């Protein structure tokens, strides 16, 4: 892997003596669509929270395009090109769709920019950029609505659009397909392939394996806080460790994969 956008080295994380992440290392190649899978409780969401700075790791290092993130507070990471979505949708319930999306512009450089009365300027470029992105993904009919009242699948997409508004290089998506029906999942897959074609690398936590197979080119598998597989999506089914993790099994055979 010549040019990783994100590299994780020996990440450890404990909560009160319980090891939630143990020595997790892998790299996300620039421009790839990388899946992070594993059974419930494997530590995937915790790892996302460590990467985005919600939690501080107890050991190991994280680099975004070669820059060490140890001393970068959570709120500065979006400015470096890392944006994320959440497992349970976390849009601002009292803001309208376009306001939620425009919040994604907050981390752009320039302090005076924050004092422009954008809400009173119908032609402001902040607004037209947000509208354009909403338009691209067919969401503009909802632009003025307060998000609390919108259907689940729509809110899920808005969360991704909000993350995209920050012009990220790496997009972290935590279970984007969860709770979607088959047609919504297919729409989301095409949407993410489109996102990826804009040169944005994806790291996706997901349980829906057909979705992962259709979207991702590289897979990392975790179980009990450890990385048990890392390789091309095509070879994940051949890994004994992965099969054991998912199907349960012969614990005696520990020299798998």
């Amino acid at each position, binding site marked *: 892997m010549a040019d990783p956008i994100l590299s994780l080295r020996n990440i450890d994380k404990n909560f009160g003596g319980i090891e939630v992440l143990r020595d997790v290392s892998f790299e996300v190649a620039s421009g790839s669509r990388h899946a992070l899978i594993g059974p419930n409780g494997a530590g995937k969401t915790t790892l996302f929270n460590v990467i*985005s*700075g*919600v939690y501080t790791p107890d050991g190991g290092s994280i680099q975004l395009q070669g820059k060490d993130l140890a001393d970068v507070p*959570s*709120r*500065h*990471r*979006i*400015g470096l090109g890392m944006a*994320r979505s*959440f497992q349970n949708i*976390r849009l*601002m*319930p*009292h*803001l*309208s*769709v*376009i*306001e939620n999306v*425009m*919040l*994604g*512009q*907050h*981390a752009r450089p320039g302090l005076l*920019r*924050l*004092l*422009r*009365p*954008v*809400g*009173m300027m*119908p032609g402001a470029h*902040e*607004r037209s950029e*947000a509208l354009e992105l909403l338009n691209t993904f067919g969401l503009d009919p909802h*632009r*003025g*609505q*307060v998000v609390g*009242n919108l259907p689940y699948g729509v809110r899920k997409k808005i969360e991704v659009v*909000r993350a995209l508004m*920050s012009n990220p290089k790496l997009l972290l998506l935590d279970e984007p397909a969860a709770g979607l029906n088959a047609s919504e999942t297919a729409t989301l897959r095409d949407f993410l392939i489109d996102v990826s074609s804009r040169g944005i690398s994806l790291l996706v936590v997901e349980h829906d394996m057909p979705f992962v197979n259709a979207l991702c080119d590289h897979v990392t598998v975790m179980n009990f806080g450890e990385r048990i597989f890392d390789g091309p999506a095509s070879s994940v089914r051949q890994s004994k460790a992965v099969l054991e993790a998912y199907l349960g099994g012969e614990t005696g055979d520990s020299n798998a994969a």
Partner: protein
Amino acid sequence: MSGYMSGLIAILGINVIFAYGIYVTAAAGQLNLGGAGFQAIGAYACALLSATYGISIFWTLVFSTLVGAAIGFLIAFPILRTRGVYMVLATFAFAEVVVGIILNSELLGGSMGLIVSDYIEWQSILWTTIGVIIFVFYLMSTPLGLAMRAVHDDEAVATIMGVNNRAIQVGAFALGGALAGLSGALYAYYFGFVEVQYFNAFLSIFVLLYVLIGGTQTAWGPLIGATFFTLIPEALRMGEDWRFLIFGVLIVVMMIIRPEGIVTRDALDRIWLKLKPQTNDGAPNG
């Protein structure tokens, strides 16, 4: 204009500015039940500056506002260490401390109060109020105002989106202290006399109710809330002894039928759609 009407406009203006002082912190997610303390600081700063140092009215108002801002800024640090109902109690305690200090200070007149040596007309209060309303509407239309509302809704996600929660919350307290201080200074000038008994817990509760009943989702809320609370008791005067009962019942009814405040985003959207039924293009707040 009759003395009654001009007095009503002056009180309305003071209440609206005061309400915006509480609103700016509420918009960023913090309830301030110490409003009377901040208003007292502005009022006493004004009385002291005008009487002792003989500074012009304009500069006294500016300094009183700045004193309110400085106290709001400083008090934000201990208060923001608390959460939820404890924060409400901490702001309440702050107001009690302010009252205690004034009562025990000879310089501030103790329980006797202070006489203010200058006087302003209701027109000055009206113009100042209009200026404050425009300022708050402007603030809430900026990305900064959007960030404040984001902090209100979800601090953790606001952080991920790059918002400096701490700076927003401290700034909101400083701005809230400034506006409450300004309202106190206007009060001192208009009534010509400040006494600590006026700045009691009921005042703090009432101004917080202006904001909560009016609604914290938009900058219209405090304006509507303060107007409602200032004018309704006046309109009920003919009811004599019954007016406080009727007023209390009205508050409870409001809380039942409009739990998020009189003015909400949904309500504004509906009004907008009625005015422009053919399309919702160009809706002002997106």
